[in-house]
């Protein structure tokens, strides 16, 4: 018992994290974990009071309830446009991040996201990849895996019909304006810790005015995957991570 008494608090509840906000997410959704890790990242970097979040449309808008910074909710897919404008009219004084889903950032919002990356816009994109459109009921997203069944690929995503999934961190690594890209997961404590490190490094690139930074996070969607929360974690380990490899794809301190 003395061991318990000697335990010390290594990380308290982040001030920015709204503990009741999680009630709006589905059971087994990992938005809450991602949001908490992001709150910790901002507080550890000491930027939380000069940071603005831009939310997308869809499940990603839950972040506006989970993270107690200033928020703007942009039109569907257009978070990077709004973020670009805020970063510029604030004359770079603010730290600006977007919080988007795969459909928002990589389907309807591709122009906005990719051009912000190509230009080297000093913003940070946090993209939650759950492999489908969550809010609308589990339709195919650009990140749906080959063979994966969704309500709009009821026979499984067919390479010949729907084509390939979108590998944003890998593609963006080739763009000159990009300072940092990474893909993390939340299926184990170690992966949570790594994902938080990615978030902090991505934000640091913006703080240091290096370039565009992007972190993709693999996340579960139990209701639309028709799996229990635990089965979702097994699927992430066995099917999703092999298709979407984890790690950092670009990390530079100065753009070419």
């Amino acid at each position: 018992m003395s061991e318990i008494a000697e335990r010390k608090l290594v990380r308290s509840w982040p001030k920015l994290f709204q503990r009741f906000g999680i009630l709006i997410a589905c059971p087994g959704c990992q938005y809450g974990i991602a949001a908490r890790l992001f709150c910790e990242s901002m507080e550890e970097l000491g930027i939380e009071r000069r940071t603005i979040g831009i939310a997308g449309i869809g499940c990603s808008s839950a972040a506006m309830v989970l993270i107690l910074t200033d928020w703007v909710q942009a039109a569907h897919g257009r978070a990077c446009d709004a973020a670009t404008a805020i970063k510029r009219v604030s004359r770079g004084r603010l730290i600006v991040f977007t919080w988007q889903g795969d459909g928002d950032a990589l389907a309807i919002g591709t122009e906005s996201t990719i051009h912000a990356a190509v230009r080297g816009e000093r913003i940070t994109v946090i993209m939650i990849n759950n492999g489908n459109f969550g809010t609308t009921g589990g339709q195919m997203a650009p990140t749906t895996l080959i063979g994966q069944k969704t309500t709009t690929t009821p026979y499984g995503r067919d390479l010949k019909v729907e084509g390939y999934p979108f590998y944003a961190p890998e593609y963006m690594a080739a763009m000159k304006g990009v300072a940092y890209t990474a893909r993390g997961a939340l299926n184990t404590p170690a992966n949570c810790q790594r994902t938080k490190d990615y978030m902090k490094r991505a934000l640091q690139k913006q703080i240091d005015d290096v370039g565009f930074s992007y972190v993709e996070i693999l996340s579960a969607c139990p209701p639309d995957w028709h799996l229990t929360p635990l089965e979702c974690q097994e699927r992430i380990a066995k099917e999703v991570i092999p298709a979407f490899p984890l790690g950092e794809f670009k990390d530079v301190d100065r753009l070419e």
Partner: protein
Amino acid sequence: MSEKLFVIGNEAVGWGALMADCDAFFGYPITPQNEITEWFAREYPTRGKIFFQTTSETSTINMLYGGAAYGARVMTATSSPGWALMQETMSHMVNAELPAVIVLVQRGGPGQGTTRQAQMDYFTVTRGGGQGGYKNIVLCPASVQETHDLVQLAFFLADKYRNPVVVLTDAVIGVTTENLEVRRVDFGSLPAKDWAVRGLENQPDGQSRLLTCSQGYGPNLTHPTFLALLTALDKKYKMMKEAELRYETHQVEDAELVLVAYGYPSRVCHEALEMARNEGLKVGLVRLITAWPFPYQVVGERAQKGSKFLVVEDSLGQMLEDVKLGVEGKSEVCFLGTFARHLPTETGLIFPERVMEEIRRIL
């Protein structure tokens, strides 16, 4: 302090924006508004202000959305196809209650249409062209000076009502060179933008702000329900309708025929009016300064007194429908539109002589 220049209408947009302390211009090239975007590219960075060339009009309007959320005075200029691309976020800005100024230099349509003068976007600017049905003030300059003045008014009204404002011009007003007196127009004071999203450390009350285009979707403190949101917006539209109607009348008191026009055809009508009066024909003119709100009442009063109407509009008849709404069937409404141009090609114009012909035919 004022400066006298000899410039085109499109450049007057820039000078007006500068006098209104517009902080940032976001734009995508499209004819016939390119002189506006190029003016900002040339004049804004050297003054510590922001010019940004976007990757599409969709991107443009969403950058206005972001810049407005920060509390900055932001604007863009576009032409008809670009205007169509902006509609979704025009509606979002009304929902999120964000102020911005959009200058629309109309060109011919439908489709890619022409790059020359026309007035074929009246419906989409006055009826809320995006989803959900909404209203925005529409200002219609008819000269270079008025373009400069109304751009300043547009910023004031956008901030006053927290709603986007459209300045509706056309390719003739846009490329006509006239005298311009660059001066600051004072419209009075405005409340501080305490709703703006600027980061916690910049909020005087230390409270976080949320600006969303999903007002009405979930409860928020300002508008607890969907109907509460609609009630608030409806009240705002009514306030705009009552307080912001602007128009000019010329010799309507004894007019047997009232011309109704805005933009370049209103200049044409002025000349036709002089010609008609010289011939002893009792003709008057109502020129719109706001296309929305529309002066239904003044049109209705003239109809009641027996005046006939001739709408001169370079389209197949859009504002025409508003005139008919004002007239309520009490009098005859004639129309002279794009088919009255002097040439069948895109360079065709409606000339005063043609309007005069029509006046003679009616009276």
